[in-house]
């Protein structure tokens, strides 16, 4: 497997002597969609921030296409695109201008940009909103602009944090279809989500985080089998497996 993203014994946090994430190791290959799941505060967002290069690891390394940020920041950054949990947009731009800026930043050819723009606007039903300032959009529409911008970048690695928040059912459907298409085209995707049924249905692999550590990782089938073995009972789906693994470290009230 060609690892697009390789995380090696990564530890880090906001305080130099207190790690929020501890000794994380995982990798994502070309054309893989990996779900990052866990309770609030499990360390998912901190992990993502380290991968994005927004936080410096206390120890360990993050490689994208075999390069760390320090080795080759251009390859590292131009290979990845990010969709944050809450839309972060340049509010002085219209939808089209936002996509144009992303295309410029990622060195997309102008002719390809124009073609891609029409396709994305149509797919996300935003054609009529193309000249609207992003500050005037609803939260769901802002999220669509974020997703369209990430897709415009044609990344090798797409990091997508809680992508379904604020999207309408048609938006969710379009996004899932798009993710499957991207995956089939060879994009590696890391998706953090709380919607376990969707993760179970669409992800090739799962990373379950708890208290800053990887509690368990593997395919859905492996995780369910693992849970069945560990807890001596019939585990039917990811949700049940999730509760069993999390229950180990929590009081009954929490679970």
């Amino acid at each position, binding site marked *: 497997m060609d690892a697009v993203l390789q995380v090696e014994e990564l530890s880090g946090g906001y305080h130099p002597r207190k790690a929020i994430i501890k000794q994380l190791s995982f990798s994502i290959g070309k054309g893989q969609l990996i779900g990052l799941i866990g309770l609030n505060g499990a360390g998912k967002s901190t992990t993502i921030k380290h991968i*994005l*290069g*927004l936080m410096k690891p206390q120890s360990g390394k993050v490689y994208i296409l075999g390069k760390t940020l320090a080795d080759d*920041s*251009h390859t590292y*950054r*131009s290979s*990845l695109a*990010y969709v*944050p949990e809450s839309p*972060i947009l*340049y*509010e*002085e*731009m219209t939808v089209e*201008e936002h996509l*144009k*800026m992303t*295309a*410029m*930043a*990622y*060195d997309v050819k*102008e002719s390809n*940009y124009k073609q891609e723009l029409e396709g994305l606007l149509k797919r996300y039903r935003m054609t009529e909103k193309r000249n609207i*300032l992003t*500050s005037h959009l609803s939260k769901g529409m802002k999220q669509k602009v974020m997703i369209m911008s990430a897709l415009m970048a044609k990344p090798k690695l797409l990091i997508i944090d809680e992508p379904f928040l604020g999207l309408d059912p048609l938006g969710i459907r379009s996004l899932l279809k798009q993710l499957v298409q991207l995956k089939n085209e060879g994009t590696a995707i890391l998706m953090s989500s709380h919607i376990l049924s969707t993760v179970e249905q669409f992800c090739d692999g799962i990373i379950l985080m708890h208290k800053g550590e990887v509690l368990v990782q593997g395919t859905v089938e492996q995780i369910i089998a693992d849970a069945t073995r560990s807890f001596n009972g019939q585990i039917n789906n990811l949700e049940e497996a999730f509760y069993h693994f999390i229950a180990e470290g929590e009081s009954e009230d929490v679970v």
Partner: protein
Amino acid sequence: MLFNPHELYLSRKKASLQSILPYIRYIAQSGLLLVISLAVIVFIDQYFKLLKYTPEQFPYDIVLTFVIGLSFIYSPFRSWLKPADVIYLMPKQQAMQEYIRFCSRRGYLISLIITVVVVVLSFFILRAYDDEAKLYIILYSVVAKNVIYHISYNLSSLTNKALMYTMKSIIYFVSFLGVYFIFEYSVLVSYVMLSILLVIHYLYINKQLNQFFNWQQLIEDEQRKVHRTYRFLNLFVDVPHIQSVTKKRQYLAQFAHNIKFTRTNTFSFLHYLTFARSEVGGIYIRNLVVGCIIAFIMANTMLWDGYAAMFFAVMFMAMNAVQVSTLRQIHQHSVWQNIYPIPLTKQHKQMTSIEFRLLLVAAIIFTLLPTTPFMMVGNWQLVGQFAIAMLVIVLWRMLVIRSRVKKLIK
């Protein structure tokens, strides 16, 4: 702890002042205070010239009716109430009545002083009136201000908005017409109008007044006043308290599409659109228009041999230069700056090129438009001096911007 309305009043008053002080300091630093001081000197000079050579047909009664009438209806009342007070202070409704009385007393005193100052200043023009007439005017003004302030204050506890607006219209009508009749030597008519206003108030309004003040109304009024203050300050400096307003400004934004579609222009594209659509663009255009008009008038009158025009042009150009350098702060903490595959040094280089172009455009406009009167008389020496002054500002700001960028990158 016992709730003390006076302490709350003092702390809110102090907090209100402290919230605007930093902006006043920025305005002072940007040179605007100098411009205002000079404008005041020019105004006083022109005012005394007008007093000396007042045309016979000068409509002083109309002008003064307007000015004094405005001072009657102007209310500096501030409640400093906040939306959260509905939850935390409403249970102390009884004690808050006293708090509002403190606020009202402050508003009353300030507005009375303003009215008396306006009336006394107007006496310079009222040479046609004898001392007795002037005494009548002062007396009437004090009585009218008291009546109008008292009624306006009571209106704030009305929940019936239609009635409130009707009463406000009557107050405006009486304020202006009452002063007009005083100038027409119909003092009695003015007092009768005030009496009618009082009668209407006691017959129709008093019955509808709530026992307690109208929280919602006062909070809305307060927010409006705070917003108005910030909007005023925002004319000169960027005020983050105001939720940033993005305007489409297509006439400015359209030039962004002339920026070439390349990676090396990504942040120029962003930076220009941010300028065009944020408050910075609005302030830049306003400074350009106002500065050019004032400098042009000064150039036309050849005040201080034309150097007054240069002074104003330089001041407004400097204000624009300061505004342009605040532009990059807007997206300073944006996560995308650390995610897009463009090194920080190149991002800043792209931004700086836009800042330089904006300064250059302002410098050219400030050189060409206000100096038209000099060009007409062939005074090319002054035009040249204008151009040099503008270039000096451009170079000075570019040096400042570069040193800031260096620090930012470090």
